[in-house]
């Protein structure tokens, strides 16, 4: 216990310097600004803003990026409430009751409740991250390459099970991601792999290029196709602070949501995406009058928003302690850390405690800043949302171009991004959900590395992967889980969860 407090104190001395506070603030503000734009989720936001952190020192860059992440998350909720367009999967739930509240003239209360519930969840989740960091890191240091490989397999299987739509199609996206990760010169043998003689890809594909193409450009194309009712709330936002009754109604849901989200976020394979759905279902189940849900029930905003934010935060745990990104956003963080010469994993905490604890402390500061900057700025976001899409998308496009170009000052990267925009659009047209592809892409490289280490012993075969009891049980568990997901009965109930 005193360890944690001591470590957090160390973290706060790092995070509370004027420079890092300013970066955290800037990250939250810019993240919200971009995240508020409809159809721009956290993945696209982070990919777009990655280059502006290049000039910073590693800790500053990470603090700013996580600020951007929270900001983008929060911005997505704002859009969900005010415009009924979820920025990403996790804010879908917020549209249900949040937008109804807005239509009833309670937009301000919905936004305020979301902000307060998120802050509460963020505070709790920061403590969870701090508390689990030491034991998880100690555990991770005992893992061998075959254990890590098995963990990644399990993460990918989770991602398949939790993805929406058909299981074979989600699986195909992951496998395609792994396949794409092998493009380029093989790091170990120096052989060219699937480069088709193109020098641009001999170093492999860039993660940000894929992310921006698939989540930036393809998303724009999708939005252009549905000139949807962008039903920006007219009329007033109303007061922001929830009344005493509102607070009383939302306290328990927010707490339950926080617990659910904190737990699900730790799971490998994007458990966080499930958190708001799970919280909403739970609140609806235990409500005295379930019919209020979907008609502006404040519990339907408080619970899922808390779950969402808690999950967003605890999903840092697998990344920081095991070095395994659980979802596409964390995969982007891996990319950002690598640029600064950091390899995510258990060694970060022991070798760079200041960076590690500074980041955790800044998570809490970031949450506090979101609360402080967002409530007064709601008016600004509303005005931003009223900008017509015909002007908004060329602007988003230009930011994306500048962002991609700035990664390596290479125009070729911009062209590659356009190519991936086309690929992403094709995938959407064929009914694929592309998020698992990104995860597969990042984990693909890590998996190959660990597979190589695991099998470098003399006489090793694929069966050697089962040598360690942990690895063997994880692999068997993954196989069972995958089988269950394919079975129709489970598939049906899974659909029910997502429908609700």
């Amino acid at each position, binding site marked *: 216990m005193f360890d944690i407090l001591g470590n957090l104190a160390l973290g706060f001395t790092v995070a509370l310097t004027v420079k890092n506070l300013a970066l955290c603030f800037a990250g939250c503000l810019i993240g919200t600004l971009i995240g508020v734009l409809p159809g721009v989720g956290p993945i696209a936001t982070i990919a777009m803003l990655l280059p502006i952190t290049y000039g910073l020192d590693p800790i500053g860059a990470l603090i700013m990026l996580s600020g951007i992440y929270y900001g983008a998350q929060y911005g997505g909720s704002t859009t969900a409430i005010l415009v009924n367009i979820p920025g990403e999967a996790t804010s879908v739930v917020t549209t249900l009751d949040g937008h109804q509240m807005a239509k009833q003239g309670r937009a301000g209360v919905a936004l305020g409740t979301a902000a307060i519930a998120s802050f509460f969840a963020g505070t709790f989740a920061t403590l969870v991250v701090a508390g689990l960091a030491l034991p998880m890191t100690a555990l991770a240091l005992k893992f061998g390459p075959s254990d890590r490989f098995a963990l990644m397999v399990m993460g990918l299987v989770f991602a398949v099970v939790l993805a929406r739509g058909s299981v074979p199609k989600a699986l195909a996206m992951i496998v395609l991601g792994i*396949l794409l990760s092998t493009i380029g010169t093989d790091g170990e043998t120096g052989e060219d792999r699937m480069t088709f003689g193109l020098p641009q890809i001999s170093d492999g594909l860039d993660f940000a290029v894929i992310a921006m193409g698939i989540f930036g450009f393809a998303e724009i194309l999708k939005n252009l196709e549905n000139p949807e009712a962008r039903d920006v709330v007219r009329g007033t936002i109303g007061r922001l602070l929830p009344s005493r009754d509102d607070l009383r109604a939302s306290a328990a849901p927010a707490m339950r949501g926080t617990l659910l989200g904190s737990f699900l976020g730790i799971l490998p394979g994007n458990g966080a995406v499930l958190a708001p759905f799970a919280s909403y279902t739970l609140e609806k189940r235990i409500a005295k009058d379930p019919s209020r849900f979907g008609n502006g029930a404040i519990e339907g905003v408080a619970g899922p928003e808390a779950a969402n934010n808690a999950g967003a935060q605890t999903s840092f745990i697998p990344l920081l302690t095991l070095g395994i990104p659980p979802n596409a956003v964390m995969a982007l963080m891996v990319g950002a850390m690598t640029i600064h010469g950091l390899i995510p994993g258990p060694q970060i905490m022991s070798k760079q405690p200041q960076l590690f604890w500074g980041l955790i402390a800044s998570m809490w500061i970031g949450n506090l800043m979101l609360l402080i900057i967002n409530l007064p700025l709601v008016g600004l976001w509303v005005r931003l949302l009223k900008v017509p899409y015909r002007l908004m998308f060329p602007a988003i496009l230009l930011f994306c171009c500048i962002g991609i170009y700035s990664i390596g000052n290479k*125009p070729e990267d911009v062209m590659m991004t356009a190519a991936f925009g086309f690929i992403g659009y094709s995938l959407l*047209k064929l009914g694929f959900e592309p998020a698992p592809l990104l995860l597969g892409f990042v984990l693909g490289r890590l998996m190959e590395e660990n597979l190589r280490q695991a099998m470098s012993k003399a006489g090793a075969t694929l069966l050697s992967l089962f040598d360690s009891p942990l690895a063997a049980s994880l692999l068997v568990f993954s196989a069972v889980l995958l089988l269950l997901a394919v079975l129709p009965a489970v598939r049906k109930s899974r659909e029910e969860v997502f429908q609700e």
Partner: protein
Amino acid sequence: MVKSPQDFAAGLVLIAIASIAWISTLGLPFSQVGGVGSGMLPKSTALILGALGLLIVVGSLMSEGPPLERWSVREAAMVLGGVLAFALTIRGTPLPALGFNIPALGLAVAGPLAVLIAAQADRSTRLIEVVIFAVVLTALCIILFRFLLGLPIPVFPPLLGY
């Protein structure tokens, strides 16, 4: 007969990708002395991808599913064309095959160009509005990215030299 055209096409695309990957990695060894060869991961993922493609194709023959969606060719061409125009002009591109080179024009040209081309994807675009918007937006981007954030992005090389 095909009951789910979208899945049918999706499966075929996966099989095609898998085949290309498989053929282009034919020469890579699956295993080598000391363990995993450079071909193991690409080949095994290509194989799994092909199998999944087959599964999806078979499934599309058995159960009903969504039809093929219409592609918005014009929108895609304009949006991606705008991006391409940005890529070609920001630092210039030699085009020996066509006998000329695109000079390095910097953000001052690449920015408005990308915005103006991409904006054509939306039929409700108004010309004067978008021209003004493109110029103002580019100016803001130059101030923000080049001067405030200090990114080494060329502004207008023909006149400014950077």
